[in-house]
């Protein structure tokens, strides 16, 4: 995540947008790139995309809010995902969420006060054979027990 570009877009991002500008169906691909760079899609970013593409803001906002993958608020430095897909749910992944709350005081959808961790529920990360599964900053942890949670968090402290 490039924090220095909080409000502006980097050169690469603008170049990417220009490259895709004329392609039909470009909006979602561009929003992915914005989120990849900024970690989420702020109101300002959406306005900027609207300006660069000449697409009304309402259309962009409609797309951003439709898709779960796009985040509207800034995630923590390490985003934690706990899988609540069927396989993980049956194997008790809710307990992981409870444990994270106990360890970090972190609720689903929230960020810790120091901005270090955020917590998100996801539905199947495709590692169901390892259920229950959680990911931290994209690293996958399988067969997670309550007891293993503190150790996993420690790695990212």
């Amino acid at each position, binding site marked *: 995540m490039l924090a220095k570009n909080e409000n502006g877009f980097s050169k690469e991002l603008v170049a990417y947008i220009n490259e895709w500008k004329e392609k039909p169906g470009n909006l979602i691909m561009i929003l992915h790139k914005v989120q990849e760079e900024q970690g989420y899609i702020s109101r300002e970013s959406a306005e900027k995309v609207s300006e660069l593409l000449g697409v009304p803001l309402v259309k962009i906002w409609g797309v951003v809010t439709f898709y779960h993958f796009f985040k509207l608020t800034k995630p923590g430095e390490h985003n934690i995902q706990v899988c609540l897909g*069927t396989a993980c749910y049956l194997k008790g992944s809710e307990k992981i969420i409870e444990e994270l709350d106990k360890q970090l005081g972190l609720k689903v959808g929230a960020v810790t006060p120091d901005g270090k961790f955020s917590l998100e529920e996801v539905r*199947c990360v495709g590692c169901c054979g390892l259920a229950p599964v959680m990911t931290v900053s*994209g690293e*996958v942890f*399988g067969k997670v027990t*309550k007891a293993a949670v503190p150790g996993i968090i420690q790695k990212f402290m």
Partner: protein
Amino acid sequence: MAIRNYILVCGGTACESSHSDQIYNALVKEAKEQGVENEVQVVRTGCFGFCEQGPIVKILPEDSFYVKVKPEDAHELIAEHIIKGREVTRLLYDKTKSAKHAQVEDIKFYQKQFRIVLRNCGFIDPENIDEYIARDGYAALEKAIFEMTPEDIINELKTAGLRGRGGAGFPTWMKWNFTKQVDNPVKYVVCNADEGDPGAYMDRSTLEGDPHSVLEAMTICGKAIGAHQGFIYIRAEYPLAIHRLEVAMKQSRDYGLLGKDILGSGFDFDIEIRLGAGAFVCGEETALLQSIEGHRGMPMPRPPFPAVKGLWGMPTVINNVETWANVPVIIHKGGEWFSKIGTADSHGTKVFALTGKICNSGLVEVPMGTTLREIVFDIGGGIAHGKKFKAVQTGGPSGGVITEANLDTPIDFGSLVRIGSMMGSGGMIVMDEDDCIVDVAKFYLNFTVDESCGKCAPCRIGGRTLYHILEKITNGNGTMEDLDKLQEIGDAMRKASLCALGQTSPNPVLSTMKYFKDEYLAHIVEKRCPSGKCKKLISFTIDPEKCKGCSLCARNCPVGAISGELRKTYHIDQSRCIKCGVCHDSCKFGAIKVN
């Protein structure tokens, strides 16, 4: 010196999360340090399917199957197996078979499997096109371009009897034929890699382990229907699969197998990747096409079908990843060969993601017509921790449960519908006696309510109402009329919803009501949850026989509901207990009873 041994290391997402990349690096390093780097080749492959036992390392030609390997084991594997020719018994899957090798054929997990779709997963390096070609890759494309007419290609699929693996089982040749018959200069080929069913990962593993098979198949389709552009719509949550597809596309362009003038034939076909963004409904084909066009993923009424009016209004063939992966084999080996596998109703194989309360979870590919009993007990090794089998859920949020009584039904598209479930995309979730069936139905409804796009009222409002009724029942406030309401609303949603999301979302409720009526009644009439899962319906008590009075539970209770004197029996104040279960989990003597 010639290569003596191949060491295959699983590089699927599940094994990578258990550090298979480090194992790969350690093996390469050890081979070098021990002076055998010219005699062994270490290959990073796609998923072996046996995720339960991962990370997996297989050494050829002995076919030794090592499980739960750690990076530290690399030294021993090279020193013992490669240099001294002695297997490392402690890492073999079946330690008793060590004298005669614990070979892949000896492993029950693989015995009943038959691999068409997963033919290359775990055998080749997915990032090396030469390995795909060495296993007959792109032979089908060559045949399709130079030896077959578009009609021949479609006829071959017709003979094969391939039906779509994305859920509905629609005959693939018919889709292609409709699209071919429409006279239009621009047509599209789309691969549905959205795989939204929670608990299913067949498509991911196929793309990660064998991306070229999908590229080859889409190009063949382009030739058959007269399209020059393809799109792969893939979940953004699958970064490794996206990466492997990108690598594969570049390599096949470099080899003249994709892009302009393929193999010098004058036929042009190229493919682009489009990312999904976490909306389950976008797996539905019309919503998916909307999403590729950059809109909110709202389904459209059909007809017109995508075959006639699809992406940007052009005729479009859309197939699922697994459907695609079957195509090159059918063209290469012939439809006749394919049609002999499976049942009369459904030919070929099906890949299932076997998960839940099962000993060997993983990916399994079996001929159509295999029974559930064979999958769950022979391949899957039965229920974990000696618990009792309760049901298998297939078809994800659109499917239903299959009980003990139907375990011997040979599975194909038709038979699953007859017993009240459906094939779906291939998620197979095993439940044991600890799982509450009403809770599971509520879980699926919660999912579909969340994922409903909101366009049509039956799905938007009906789903929510079903969910609330289930919530009421699991909270102990259900009445007998609620059962009738569930049935009535469910039936209405089936008939009146716009797309299959709403039409099928009542299935988990209706099917569990049919097979587990007594469990619903226990919740409603007796206010009791037989499996002890529904918190509002259970209570915790302390067994005086077992309690040692250690005070651990009292110290852990977050609301101070437990009191007592050291070394005497403790007591739970039911009026204060919030049923969080912390006492139950913390007691070392098993003295906390769930009622």
